[in-house]
Each structure stands twice: as C-alpha cells, then as structure tokens.
C-alpha cells in the first residue's frame, strides 16, 4: 500500500509504504476473542462435569494461538517512509520505529529498475546515489512498485524545479 502526504507544497513530501498484511489488529482481537469464547465455553462445561484437565490444555493452546498471531502481525507491520524535504531525501525502514535509514541529497538520487530475482518475481526498484543502490518497497506488488516509481520521479522533479 502506498500513501502520500504533503507538507509545504512542492517542497515537502512523504510517501509511506506498508507490507501486504491482510489482517488488522482489530480483526485479530476479534478472532482471538471468538476462539477464547469457544474454548472457554467447552472447558467450563467440562470442568463443571468434573473433567477439569481440559482447562489447562485449552488455556495453553489459546496462549500459543494468541502469541503466534501477535508475532505475525508484528512482523507484517514492516513499513518504509520516504521523506522529501527541500534538498534531502530520507528513506527509513522499520516496524514501530526506523530500523534502517538512509539520507541522500535529492539532486543526486536516481531511480533504477533492476532485474527480478526470479522469473515470477516483480522487478526490483532501487534508489541510486553516488554509486550505491538500495532496494525500496521490496514487499510491494509489481503494480505498486510502478506507481511508487512514477510518484517518486514526479516528486523529485518537482522538487528540483523548486530548488532551482
């Protein structure tokens, strides 16, 4: 998913890229609540009949389920933020906070398409500056990468115009 935000027109832009995660935290909580309700009802019923050993198994299982879902959700929270402010371009990648980042002179930044990894994968998009390149939007679909490339190219050239 690509989201664009604008600060001072023509000078400050921000593009936010998020990974393909088809479940929101709300949906996850809803699902876990249903599972808890189900397991809780059966376990309570059997405890009332005297079969209490069902309860710890049900509890442990629910905890494992919740842990696994939480972990997947966190992992899929990976995002990239590209900020264009005057003459710098800042690329950041991380989950809750930036874990990798890059600060470039926007005048020297070029976008470059690379070969796909494999015949079924999308072509890769790189930011290139001073002979070094960094892949961006690795979690996006091919269409999204194309959109990203077009947006970024447009913003960079606007930015150049303004700076001149």
């Amino acid at each position, binding site marked *: *998913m690509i989201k664009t935000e604008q600060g001072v027109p023509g000078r400050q832009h921000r593009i936010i890229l998020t990974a*393909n995660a088809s479940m929101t935290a709300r949906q996850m909580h809803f699902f876990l609540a249903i599972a808890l309700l189900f*397991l809780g009802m059966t376990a309570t019923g059997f405890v009332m009949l005297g*079969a209490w050993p069902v309860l710890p198994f049900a509890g442990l299982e629910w905890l494992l389920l919740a842990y*696994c879902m939480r972990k997947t959700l966190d992992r899929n929270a990976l995002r990239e933020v590209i900020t264009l402010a005057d003459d710098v371009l800042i690329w950041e990648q991380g989950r809750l906070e930036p874990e990798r980042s890059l600060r470039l002179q926007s005048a020297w930044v070029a976008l470059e398409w690379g*070969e796909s990894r494999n015949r079924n994968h999308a072509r890769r998009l790189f930011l290139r500056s001073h002979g070094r390149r960094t892949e961006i939007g690795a979690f996006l*679909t091919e269409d999204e990468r194309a959109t990203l490339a077009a947006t970024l190219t447009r913003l960079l050239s606007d930015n150049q115009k303004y700076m001149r």
Partner: protein
Amino acid sequence: MSASAATHDDHHDDHHDDHGPAKGFMRWVYTTNHKDIGTLYMITSLIMFMIGGAMALVIRLELFEPGMQYVDPGFFNQMTTLHALIMVFGAVMPAFAGMANWMIPIMIGAPDMALPRLNNWSFWLLPFGFVMLASTLFMEGGAPAAGWTLYPPLVLQTGDSFPFTIFTIHILGISSIMAAINIITTVLNMRAPGMTMMKLPLFVWTWVITAFLLIAVMPVFAGAVTMLLTDKYFGTSFFNAAGGGDPVLYQHLFWFFGHPEVYILILPSFGIISQIIPTFARKPLFGYSSMVYATASIGLLSFVVWAHHQYTVGMPIAGELYFTYATMLIAVPTGVKVFNWISTMWRGSMTFETPMLFAIAFVMLFTMGGFTGLMMSISPADLQYHDTYFIVAHFHYVLVPGSVFALMAGTYYWLPKWTGYMYDERLGKLHFWLTTISVNVTFFPQHFLGLAGMPRRIPDYAVQFAEFNAWSSVGAFVFGFSQLLFIYIIIKAVRGGQKATDEVWEGASEHGLEWQLPSPPPYHSWITAPFVK
C-alpha cells in the same frame, strides 16, 4: 523431490531469501520452506497409508472365512486399533496438512506460511509419534487393543504400551494444533492484496474451518486421554465408578472431540472436490458463497451432535430426540454442497481425466455414506445398527471413497504442478477403475452383514456371514494392491515424463493462482504478491 530441486539455477543474486534448497539430507531436517514441508507430510502420509493398509489386510485375511486361522484375538484387536489410529492420524490428516502446506500459500499469493519454523516443528513431531506408536507392538502386553476410541474401563487393561499410546496422542495432537494455528494465521494475515475472504479458493476456506475445528476440540481430547493416564497410574477416578467417577463422561469427552474430528477428515476433501469439478466442467463453481456458508454450518453443527455415537448408552429420551434432530440437520448443508457440485457439472463441457473421475466417484459414493449416516442418526433405528458392521460400512464409505478419494483426486490434479511432469493418464485411469470397483466390493457387502447382525471388532463370526465376508476380503486385497500402482504412478511422474505446462489443465488458469506459476513453481514463489482482481 524434483519439485523444488530443479528450480533455482536461474538466479544470480546474493540476496538472502533467494537461495534454492540446501543440499543433502539436512535440507529436509532444517527446512522451513512450505513446499518442502508439504512434500515431507505427503510422503509420510503415503508410508503410513501403506502400513495402515497392511494392518487392514491382516484383519481382512482373518475374516476371509469363519473360524480362527491366522492371528490370535488379542493381536486382531491390536490390528483394528492401530489401523484406525494410523489411518486417521497418520495417513489422512498429514496428507491434508501436506496439501495445505503446498497449496495454501500459492493459492492466496503468499510467499510462505506465516510461521515457517513452527511449520518445521509440526512436521518433525510426526515421525517421532509414529515410531513410538509402532514400537508399542513389541511391548509387554502388545499394542493398544481397545479400539481407536480408547473407552475405559477396557483401555485401562492395556499393558506397558498404555502410557506410550497416550504420549503418542499428545505428540500428534500438538503437531495438529501447530499446523492449524499456522494455517489460520497464514490465511488471515498473508493474503495478497485484493484476495478478500470471499475470493478465497474453497480448498483454503474449508481448511480454515477445519483448522478452527482442530483448535476447538484438540484440548478436549488431550484432557480426556490425560485423565485416562491419571486414572491408571495416579489413583484418580475420573472415569471409575467405584471412585465416584463416570465412564460415560469419557464417551462424552471423546465424541465431543471425535465427531468434529471426522469432519476434520472430510471438510478439506470438500475443498479439493470444489477445486476440481469447476476445472474439468470448464465453468465457475456453482453457488460459491453458499458453499462457504454450508461448510461453516457443517463446522458449527459438528459441535452439537456428538452423542449420536452414544445412543445405546442410556441417555434420557430428550437427549435421544435432540441428538437425532440435530444430526439430521447436518444433511441440509451437506445436500447444498452435493447440489452445487452437480449444478457445476450441469451443461459444462466436461472431460474425464483421472482427477475428475475420482471427484465424480467422490460425489456419488460419499453421498451414499451420508445416507447411511442419516439412517443411523435416527436413535431408535440406531439401536439396531450400533456396533455392527453397518457402522463400519458407513464410515468407510465416507472415509475411503470420501476423504481418500479426494486425496487421490487432489494428488492427480496437482501432481503435474508439484513435479513439473504429467503423470501417466492411462495408468491413472486404470488405478481409478481398480480402486473404485474394489472399494465397493469391499465395503458394500458390509452393509448387509451389519443389518444381519454381525458385530464389529471381532475376529470370528457365525457361518451365515461367510459369503459377504469373503467378498469383502477379496475386494480389500484388490484395493490394497491397486495402491502399489498409485505409488508407481507418483514415482514415475516425479522422475520425469511429458513436461507439464504452467496451466496444466485447459483453462485452469481461471480457476486459481496456482496455475499462473510455472510447473514446478520456483522454490520461493510469490515473494512479491500478485494483485488479485
């Protein structure tokens, strides 16, 4: 397997997620790749299918004629018990789990399962569990022999193998739970953009519901067998009337797990059949959303009908009535499904390749099993049927030409995708006819035996049952040996043959994302999600 070995020669990039499979045996031990794990599951399942099948042949050999010929009654009972446990937990469930691993990420456009390391664990627990279960055959007192339902007090007479049996069940249960959690997490969280829940292929939908059933009932089974263990060794009396417990409580626990369990064995089959019929009828599936809702209602209903397995235990009349009506209700969503499959075929331009033959046989023969189920759901009638060969006929009709046929259909359907080679169609058809004819010769006469009063789980019988039993045994041996042909066909396709196209079946690319990938798909597929329209 060549499925993934052949792929990665075309890369020239050192990025970490771009490597192909590691070399040698350790690749399989450490793998977290969903295709590798899927392959491992399916190979395990085939091996267990042959072992469980051999045990079935021991049973049918002894029952070929009246009188005691080959085995003693104790060993006979060990065979019936192990046959069921191995077929249910070793053959059918791992086969579905294998197909889920292989196909679900590909079908929803995800790069892998959500929790690949958990996936590795859930597979590798299985071999330990099965080795332990098999080792019980050599223990003092022999393998468990009280039937797969493990009813107390009988099961408490098991010898040294008792704790190992319980421990095996715990291990297999943990494995199933981990697989179920993985599948649910993957489908909820890893779908490609545009792949909404109501666009999911039915195989994926049926597996999501199956996984939910597994999560809901596994703790009950784990608790029940743990109580058996403490009753035997730690002086508790959960199921011991002398100590204030109740043996019937075990039956409620077991069947609260057991009835959803039989649906765990059939729902993914519904999914496979719903993938295959549209492809070979060259039409979209009729009534997609009603299929989803029917599957969900079968899943929900399966929690409230368990005591139809206990009609003879002395329930209050209100209980008998309730469970009769609730059970009969299941026929409604099941009927919706059968109707939709037939409507999908209606006026389609059908062709009859092996997967389609198995799918059509599934629809016809599974429905017969459903009908006998309906007969048994009527509690006053079930007093006659219960614990006779009629039950054996019922559940083998739903499980063999039901679950197992769906697995065979799915194997023929996806084998060219997995291996990159077409299987031998002529041999496939031969396998189909041998299997379908022999399965009916084996199980149809068992209806008559049951109605005439032959009890289940016995090594000897009165002479008036001789003829139908002889038929049944002959059918069983033909069925068993026909499966060697199945294995030969698979091995042949793995080793080479006519190259499969990406689409494999004419027009299949309209029926799912898996047909848009090459055959075989690269070791890592959909690293970049496709966009689903």
